[in-house]
C-alpha cells in the first residue's frame, strides 16, 4: 500500500519532482505547525516553558551527559510519578505553564543541604543571569531533555512562588528532596563535587521481524528475533573555571562490516569481538557573558533535530546521528535568548583509518524561536573524502542542507519536523525528511507517530534500476510508546514499516545512570 500510493503522490519516478513535492508538503506542514491557533508548543520539555540545552546538558547542543540541573528536571518532569502525592506530578497536570514551572522549580530554589539539590539550583541562577540559554536541537530524549533545558524567561517568578509554596507544604518539600536525591549519579548513591559531572547509558534492544529480514542476508527468514546491548557508555565532565573537559567510554560488539559502532571504536578489533569506543571527547571554553562556547575534539555533528533514534532516515542518511557519526574538529556554539546555533569545522574522524576515508568540511545549524514555544531552524553540512567509507566511491563531496522545526500545540502535544536535501558525488539529487508527533498522555508516558521519507538519489556509478530509496521515494511510518517508568529508567516500544523492508518491532530498555 505504501509503495503504490507513496510513489504516485511523491512524483512517481521523477526524483526532482518528488523532491519538490515532498519539500512543498513539508514546508506547508511546517508553517501550519509553527503558527497554530494556540501558540503553545515546543517539543518535549520545552512545552513546559523551558529552553536552553546548555543548562541541562554538557553539550551546548544537547544530548548525553546531564548537568545536575538537567538531572533534577529529568526526575521532576520526565519520569512518571505514582500515587498522586508528588507535587511535581500534580504540577504537570496544571493547565498553566507558569504554574507548572513553579512546582518544578520549587525544589531547585529551596535551600537544600543536599549536594544534588544545591547543584540543581546553580543552572537556574546562571540562567537568570545570562538569560541567553536557548534550547538546543530538540527532541533529543536520550537523556531526554535536550529540550527541557533550563528555564529561561519567566523563571524567577515561578521559582519564588515555588519557594513559598514549598515552605508552606513541608511534606511535599520532603518528597521533592527525595526525588532530587534520587536524580543524582547512580540514583544518588554518589554525590559528585560541583566541578564533576558523571553519567552513563545502557540500552538493551530487542528486534523482532515477523516476516524475517526481507533478504538482507540472515539465514533466519521468519520470526527473526535478536536482543543485544545497543549502548553501554559512561561519560563525565570536569570543569575548571571556564574550561571543561568531557569524554565518554563504552563497549560494543558488532558484526564485521556493520555500519554501527565501528566509527567510534578506540580499540582495533575488526571482527565481531567486544571493543572499547568513545563517541565524544572534547575540550571546551565558555565565554560566560556572551553565550558562546568553543570546543575542540570528537563531537556530535551540529545538524538538524537531535533525536535519539539514530536509524531514523534524517539522521542515518545524513550521517549526523549520535550513534557513531561523531567527527573530530572545532566548534563554536551560541545560545542566546531567541537564537542559538553551532558551527563545526570537521577535521575528520581519526578513529577511522586510513586517512582517505576521513571526511572534512563543516556542519552547522541555526535555530530561531519564532514564538515562546516554536522554533525554526536551518542546517547545512558539506564534506569531502578521498574515498567514502560507506559507498567506497572515490573523491566524494557530500552536501546536506535543510530546515527543521519544533513546536507544541498544547502541554501534551509536540511536533518535530525536518526536511533535508541530499547531494553527493556519483548520485542524483536526493532528499529525506520526517515528522514526529508526540503526545504525552500522562506524565512519563509518550505516544508517538512518525512519518519519514527518503530518496538518497540514483547511484550513477553503480547504475542498475531505480529502486525505492535510490532514485525513487521510500516512505516509512513509526508508532512508538515511550515510558519513563521510573527514576533513570525508560522502556520504549516501536513498530515501524518501511517500503522495501519488512515490518519491524523494537523493544528497548534504557537506563541512564
Amino acid at each position, binding site marked *: 500500500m505504501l509503495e503504490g500510493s507513496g510513489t504516485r503522490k511523491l512524483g512517481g519516478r521523477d526524483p526532482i519532482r518528488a523532491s519538490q513535492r515532498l519539500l512543498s508538503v513539508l514546508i506547508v506542514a511546517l508553517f501550519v505547525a509553527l503558527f497554530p491557533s494556540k501558540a503553545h508548543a515546543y517539543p518535549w520539555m520545552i512545552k513546559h516553558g523551558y529552553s536552553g540545552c546548555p543548562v541541562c546538558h554538557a553539550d551546548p547542543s544537547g544530548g548525553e551527559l546531564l548537568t545536575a540541573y538537567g538531572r533534577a528536571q529529568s526526575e521532576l518532569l520526565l519520569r512518571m510519578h505514582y500515587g498522586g502525592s508528588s507535587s511535581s506530578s500534580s504540577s504537570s497536570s496544571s493547565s498553566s505553564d507558569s504554574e507548572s514551572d513553579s512546582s518544578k522549580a520549587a525544589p531547585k530554589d529551596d535551600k537544600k543541604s543536599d549536594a544534588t539539590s544545591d547543584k540543581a539550583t546553580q543552572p537556574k541562577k546562571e540562567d537568570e543571569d545570562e538569560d541567553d540559554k536557548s534550547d538546543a536541537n530538540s527532541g533529543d530524549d536520550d537523556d531526554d531533555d535536550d529540550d527541557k533545558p533550563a528555564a529561561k524567561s519567566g523563571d524567577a517568578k515561578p521559582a519564588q512562588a515555588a519557594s513559598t509554596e514549598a515552605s508552606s507544604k513541608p511534606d511535599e518539600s520532603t518528597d521533592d528532596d527525595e526525588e532530587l536525591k534520587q536524580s543524582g549519579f547512580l540514583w544518588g548513591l554518589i554525590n559528585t563535587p560541583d566541578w564533576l559531572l558523571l553519567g552513563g547509558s545502557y540500552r538493551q534492544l*530487542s528486534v523482532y521481524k515477523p516476516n524475517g529480514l526481507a533478504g538482507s542476508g540472515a539465514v533466519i527468514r521468519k520470526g527473526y528475533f535478536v536482543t543485544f546491548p545497543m549502548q553501554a557508555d559512561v561519560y563525565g565532565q570536569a570543569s575548571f573555571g571556564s574550561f571543561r573537559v568531557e569524554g565518554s567510554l563504552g563497549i560494543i560488539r558488532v558484526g564485521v562490516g556493520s555500519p554501527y559502532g565501528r566509527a567510534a571504536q578506540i580499540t582495533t578489533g575488526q571482527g565481531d569481538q567486544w571493543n572499547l569506543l568513545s563517541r565524544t571527547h572534547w575540550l571546551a571554553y565558555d565565554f560566560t557573558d556572551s553565550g558562546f562556547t568553543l570546543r575542540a575534539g570528537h563531537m556530535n555533528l551540529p545538524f538538524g533535530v537531535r533525536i535519539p533514534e539514530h536509524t531514523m532516515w534524517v539522521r542515518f542518511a545524513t550521517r549526523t546521528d549520535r550513534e557513531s557519526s561523531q567527527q573530530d574538529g572545532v566548534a563554536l556554539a551560541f545560545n542566546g535568548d531567541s537564537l542559538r546555533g553551532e558551527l563545526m569545522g570537521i577535521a575528520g574522524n581519526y578513529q577511522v583509518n586510513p586517512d582517505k576515508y576521513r571526511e572534512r568540511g563543516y556542519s552547522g545549524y541555526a535555530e530561531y524561536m519564532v514564538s515562546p514555544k516554536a522554533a525554526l531552524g536551518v542546517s547545512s553540512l558539506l564534506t569531502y573524502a578521498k574515498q567514502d567509507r*560507506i559507498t567506497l566511491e572515490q573523491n566524494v563531496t557530500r552536501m546536506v542542507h535543510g530546515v527543521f522545526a519544533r513546536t507544541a500545540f498544547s502541554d501534551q502535544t509536540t511536533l518535530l519536523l525536518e526536511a533535508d536535501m541530499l547531494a553527493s558525488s556519483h548520485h542524483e539529487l536526493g532528499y529525506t525528511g520526517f515528522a514526529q508527533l508526540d503526545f504525552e498522555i500522562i506524565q512519563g508516558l509518550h505516544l508517538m507517530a512518525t512519518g519519514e521519507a527518503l530518496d538518497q538519489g540514483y547511484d550513477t556509478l553503480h547504475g542498475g534500476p531505480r529502486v525505492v530509496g535510490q532514485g525513487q521515494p521510500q516512505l516509512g511510518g513509526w508508532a512508538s510508546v515511550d515510558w519513563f517508568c521510573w527514576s533513570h529508567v525508560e522502556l520504549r516500544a516501536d513498530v515501524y514499516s518501511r517500503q522495501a523492508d519488512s515490518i519491524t518491532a523494537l523493544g528497548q530498555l534504557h537506563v541512564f545512570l
Partner: protein
Amino acid sequence: MAYIDKARASLIGAALLALCAIARPAHASSDYPPALKDALDKEFPDVNHCVPLCTACHKTTQGGPGNINVFGSTLERSDIGLVQGDASRVAPAIHNLALAMPPIDSDGDGVSDIDEINTGDSPSIAGPAGDSQFCPDTTYGCGAHIAARPPSDGWSLIPAGLVALGLLAVRRRKVRPELRR
C-alpha cells in the same frame, strides 16, 4: 495529568524487562559476508580471501534489501541460484559462477567477476575505480586490541542483569520507612 496504579505499572515494567532479558542474545549482522568467504575459499583453495563488506553485493556498507549492486544481481540470476534471505545458497551460487561459460563480467570492464574477486578487485565497479575494492582497507580504532576472540553470546546479558539487580537493590534501599509501614 492522570496517575497510573503503581502495582500495575510495576507489572508492565517487569514484563517488558523480561522481554528484553530472556531473549537469546545476538547482534544484528548479515551471514552473507562470511558465507561468501567460505564459498570462495572452498572453490579456490589456493587463493586467500577476506571476509568482504556488504559492498561485495550491495551498493553501500549498510547492505539491506533494495540495495543490490550488479554483482549481487548476477548472483541472484536463476542460472546462478542465490536466493534472498538464504545464506546457505552462497556456496552453490559461487560454484555456478565459477563454471559459467562464457565467464560473467557484471561490471563490463573486460575482467570476469571470478578473476576480479580473486585479485581483490570489485566485480561490481569497473576498473580502475573498482581496483582493490572487494576487500577495502578500512580499519577502525586508535588504541589497543582488547579481545582475541568473541565471547559467547550469553555475555551480552551480563550487563543487563547487573543493571537490573542494581535497580532492585537501589529501589529496596530507597523505600521510605513510612511506606513500609
